[in-house]
């Protein structure tokens, strides 16, 4: 008996005390949801999970899926063998490529019924490998290759080498729901990813300004949200028709305050939709000082338009470079890069105010006398798109 398994280690929830079972149940549910369409066995032990008895051709696919499950710390593709010394020798040798290297064997032994202890087994397997690989040298401190043997109870062992990091974080669902303000840019998808990583379910809201923004721009946002479902599970995306409001701002308000007021109205709508859909927080991709609308003063004036919910800005202290790097890692970069206009850029005034005053912003906003009607009309005409993860 010899088969490939995927060994999963969980991270932070390990630290949880009496609530651990709650977090673990969520994590297991999320893992199982990713395995729904795969014939396999999910095995739970005290401190690890294993995916076993699957079609080995799917190894790469399953590894990539597991790397997107928040709450998992790392994984290894291992070989499961019956515990006998010959099998351990042979399997360990399979993990030792035939090129000059330094190595060590590390044994972890839960099965105390064996006649040798961990150090003896490691030495014996090491000797077996050393005799069969030219140019191998033992290095216990900084080996290039470390082959690990995990001897479990019930007569079987796992042999593996590489530990691949997973997405870490907390299982999605343990931190309530957040409403992500999703534009077509690089930042907001990363912000959504970050909060999903802290266990949040996501809803998303997008402002669409036809004819200023195209169907393609809308589709791009739907595609971005679809990528996020790979991490966050199902996402409801609310698309708000925003042109009338932009016209009103353009007609009634000072040009340099146009963006400030637009963002105040956007976040107000987002909060209303969030509350109506059971979200306990708003999430934005703002990063301090990145553009005129993200200075401390601008953020203060925007924040004033929120009445009750906390606003999470996970990127507030990140540089653009770091954000782009994450975007690349999570697979949103290529979509965000598509050159469609989004609603923030179409009415861009020549000189947007960098340090807006709350008083002026409120006064200017008050010039739109029918704002309440415009906002409720926009909310009434929201198009909702429900996106489900494509495993």
């Amino acid at each position, binding site marked *: 008996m010899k088969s490939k398994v995927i060994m999963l280690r969980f991270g932070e929830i390990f630290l949880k005390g009496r609530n651990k079972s709650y977090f673990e149940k969520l994590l297991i549910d999320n893992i199982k949801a990713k395995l729904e369409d795969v014939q396999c066995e999910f095995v739970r032990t005290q401190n690890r999970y294993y995916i076993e008895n699957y079609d080995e051709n799917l190894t790469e696919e399953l590894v990539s899926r597991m790397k997107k499950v928040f709450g998992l710390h790392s994984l290894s593709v291992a070989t499961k063998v019956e515990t006998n010394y010959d099998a351990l020798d042979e399997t360990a040798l399979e993990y030792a490529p035939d090129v000059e290297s330094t190595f060590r064997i590390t044994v972890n032994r839960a099965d105390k019924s064996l006649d040798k202890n961990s150090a003896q087994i490691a030495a014996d397997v090491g000797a077996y490998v050393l005799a069969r690989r030219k140019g191998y040298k033992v290095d216990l401190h900084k080996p290039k290759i470390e082959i690990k043997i995990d001897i479990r109870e019930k007569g079987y062992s796992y042999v593996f080498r590489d530990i691949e990091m997973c997405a870490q974080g907390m299982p999605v669902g343990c931190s309530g729901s957040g409403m992500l303000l999703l534009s077509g840019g690089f930042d907001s998808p990363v912000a959504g990813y970050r909060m999903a990583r802290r266990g949040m379910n996501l809803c998303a809201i997008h402002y669409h300004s036809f004819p200023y923004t195209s169907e393609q721009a809308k589709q791009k946002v739907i595609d971005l949200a679809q990528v996020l479902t790979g991490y966050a599970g199902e996402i409801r995306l609310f698309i708000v028709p925003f042109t009338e409001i932009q*016209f009103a701002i*353009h007609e009634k308000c000072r040009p340099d305050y146009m963006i400030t007021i637009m963002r105040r109205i956007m976040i107000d709508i987002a909060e209303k939709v969030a509350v109506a859909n059971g979200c306990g927080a708003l999430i934005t991709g703002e990063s301090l000082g990145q553009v005129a609308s993200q200075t401390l003063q601008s953020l203060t004036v925007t924040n004033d338009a929120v009445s009750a919910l906390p606003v999470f800005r996970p990127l507030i202290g990140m540089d653009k470079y770091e954000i782009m790097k994450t975007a690349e890692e999570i697979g949103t970069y290529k979509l965000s890069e598509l050159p469609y206009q989004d609603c923030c850029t179409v*009415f861009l005034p020549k000189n947007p105010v960098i340090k807006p005053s709350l008083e002026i912003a409120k006064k200017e906003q008050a010039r739109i006398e029918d704002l309440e009607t415009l906002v409720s009309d926009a909310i009434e005409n929201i198009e909702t798109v429900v996106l489900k993860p494509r495993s």
Partner: protein
Amino acid sequence: MIYLDNAATTAMFPQCLDIYKKYAVDEFFNPSALYAPALTAAKAVSSAREKIAKALGCSAENLVFTASGSEADNFAITCGTRRKKGKIIISATEHAAVHNCAKAFAESRGYTFVIAPCDPYGAVIFDKFVDLLDEEVAFVSVMHVCNETGALNDIKSLCAEVRKRCPDAVFHSDGVQAFCKLKYNVRDLGVDLYSVSGHKIHAPKGIGALYISPKLNPRPFIYGGGQERNLRSGTENVAGICAFGYAAERMSAETAETFARQKDLQKKLIASLKAEYGGFVRINTDVERSGSNIVSFSMNGIRGEVMLHFLESKGIIVGTGSACSSKKAAERIPAALGLNGAFAEGTLRISFGETTSESDVDALLAAFADGVKLLGKYRRV
């Protein structure tokens, strides 16, 4: 829906679909095979080749089928040169298939890449072009009709100058927007290479052709089984080729008539735009020196894409310029036309098709007026 983006692509003639189906489903055979039905397919390819050659005014053996106009351009540029060094000259408003390919080819092979300037209507400026010519010139590519503005280049005269001043140079013209829309004859133009495409003349997408002068001996573009005189291997797209042949025959029979009818529409549209929107609209198409089916203009302070979406919401489909244009091309072309400031982003391209009528132009003008009324309030000037 009124479709006025025929320079981007056209609807296939229903007859082309019938022909396509015939050679894709019933007579689906590989024309190179040795059994009798394969001969039917081979004969159909020959017959289509004859039709397209006739429309171009060349002999059938001088045509090589490709999978697109872009491929024909790439073939011409990368396989057509005789000289191993020197200058490659292209015009400033060439399609990206020529511009990007010529630039990359020149850079990788050590040629000097030279751009011949255009006038504000997108046509090569003759004197400035002639100034660039010397014995160092290895390759020249000037499009026949500009896909952005409809500008007509005098290929015959440009080519004659090249022959006079650069005897070793190879002359290519991208004729994708001119084929079957103007009356001409490639032999008379004097070019060495000439690209055409099927889907701009109501044939299916995925079929194009390159005319190769008998004086030229180009390198193969695709190596393989030796199809297309060993120059462009790959099993022939029999269905596409036959449909292309039908469309070319039909369109070229109607060229003079269609040209006259579309010229009237073009004149009417340009005159109305000038009369109604004088300072706000800049016309990029010179009615006297252009093909008949394209009108390009730029608005001061309304983005082309925004007006496009507005017209789309009224059921009228227009273009903003090259549909395949990347962000880079979106900057290159306005710069070549000397468009700047608020005009630069404000270009719309209207292109007529076989069935475009005067009432379509009227509907466009009416919807455009509504668009200007609404969007004009929010201009970025």
